[in-house]
């Protein structure tokens, strides 16, 4: 049986009735569960996944590798907080390996992104280095492939 969360992750626009039938719950139970999980932060929000290229909105997205001076996890959390508070930061992760933080940011222009890195990110105390990678093309996000599926011409079959 699909759990409520799995169903929501697939498509959060489904009605309570739809979710209930699929998860083997009552509508009332679904409503209560959703309220509970929204309150305790299990469900952070509901967003649409958009191919902005389709509407010709100019955006630049960059993935920035950030190195910071070695410290405890709590120390990382403090620095991370100073970075992710900026609205420009879309996603951010603590990493294992050659660098410490992955910061994904979006801006209108290359210059705007470069400015953010140079003027906001790099000067933060404890940040020892950054490497900025610009995203050239998006293929897939959250299990969804960008681009329209090719229509298939098929005559009626009976099976």
């Amino acid at each position: 049986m699909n759990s409520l969360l799995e169903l929501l992750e697939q498509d959060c626009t489904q009605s309570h009735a739809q979710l209930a039938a699929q998860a083997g719950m009552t509508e009332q139970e679904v409503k209560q569960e959703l309220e509970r999980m929204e309150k305790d932060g299990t469900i952070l929000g509901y967003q649409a996944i958009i191919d902005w290229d389709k509407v010709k909105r100019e955006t630049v997205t960059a993935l920035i590798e950030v190195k910071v001076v070695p410290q405890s996890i709590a120390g990382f959390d403090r620095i991370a907080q100073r970075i992710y508070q900026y609205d420009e930061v879309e996603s951010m992760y603590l990493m294992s390996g050659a660098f410490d933080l992955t910061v994904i940011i979006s801006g209108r222009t290359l210059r705007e992104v470069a400015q953010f890195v140079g003027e906001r990110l790099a000067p933060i105390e404890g940040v020892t280095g950054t490497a900025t990678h610009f995203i050239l093309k998006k293929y897939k996000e959250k299990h969804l492939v960008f681009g329209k599926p090719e229509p298939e011409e098929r005559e009626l079959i009976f099976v």
Partner: protein
Amino acid sequence: MNYDSLLNDKIKNIKPSGIRKFFDILEEMTDAISLGIGEPDFVTPWHIRDAGIYSLEKGHTKYTSNAGMLELRREIARYMSRRFDLHYEHAGQILVTVGGSEAIDLTLRVLLNPGDEVIIPVPSFVCYGPLTEMAGGVPVYVELKGENQFRLTPEQLKAAITPKTKVLVLPFPSNPTGGIMERKDLEGIAEVLKDTNIMVLSDEIYAELTYGQRHVSMANLPEMYERTIVVNGFSKSHAMTGWRMGYVCAPKPVIAAMTKLHQFGIMSAPTTSQYAAVEAMRNGDGDIANMCEEYDSRRRYLVENLNRIGLECFEPKGAFYVFPCIKSTGLTSEEFCQQFLMEEKVAVIPGNAFGPGGEGYVRACYASSMKDIAEAVSRMDNFLTNLRRRQGK
């Protein structure tokens, strides 16, 4: 040319479909939501497609052995034992075919002599009758009943058996009803068959799609293994309909006869598909589970909501169809489907397309997106409300 005088009499007598008129309308209605086609909406999992592509890159473009690649038959043997506790030798007991359909055709052609009778429970998939006739046999239809959840009962079987009966077709889990035969049901059937010479053609193409319990094959029952021909394939379990990959497992003399016919008519099943199928058998059990869980979600939604809006619908325990009863509307299956299609642009299939027992029912396939299913339900609700208003109910 008078082609009519050239064509074989048997094929001339086979009607393309009893519900041609409905299909003609359906063909025109290109923007309808379709719950009509009995086919997974999933694309074949990528690792399976990739294996097919990889085999092409390596240049595996030649015939395989007639019975199918050794590697694939070994994997099928392991799969049947792992998933269904059915034990077949890869050498001599397994034949790889062009879809389950070819396996059904071969079975009937190697078993039937002119006049032999084949018992076919209906409503069921449409191929058994015509293939029986082409093989020289005589179809004997047994109407399954809604009140029995469309299971075949020993009494019905007994009543249909004559000295000429050669084959019993067991098409479970069922297209179009979603009905299954549980072990105790099969035991009742086996009891009737034990003292006869009847062979069972068990079409188990939907065996992986059962909900709440695992599929039991007639071949799992004591004394029935020897007289059962199990047809299965990759179309439904692994969403591989277009690859045309099926197989048949049976006692050696039967497989030997089928392989003979297959080698003359087909040579060998498509090589690319066989490579993909090997990957499906080796690493595809997780895909089956995922798809099955997804179908189950949709199934529950559809059954619950059809009942809610007033279409009585027994709980289908297998395949990916619901088969609601539409008798309460006072319409025939075809009238219902035609009006529903014209008024609300949703395609479901009249039950009578699957044989006489299907009248009064319609088939809806839930191997469609949840969005389409939800929209179809709300349109069905509209349709029924309007219909009742017109009928003054």
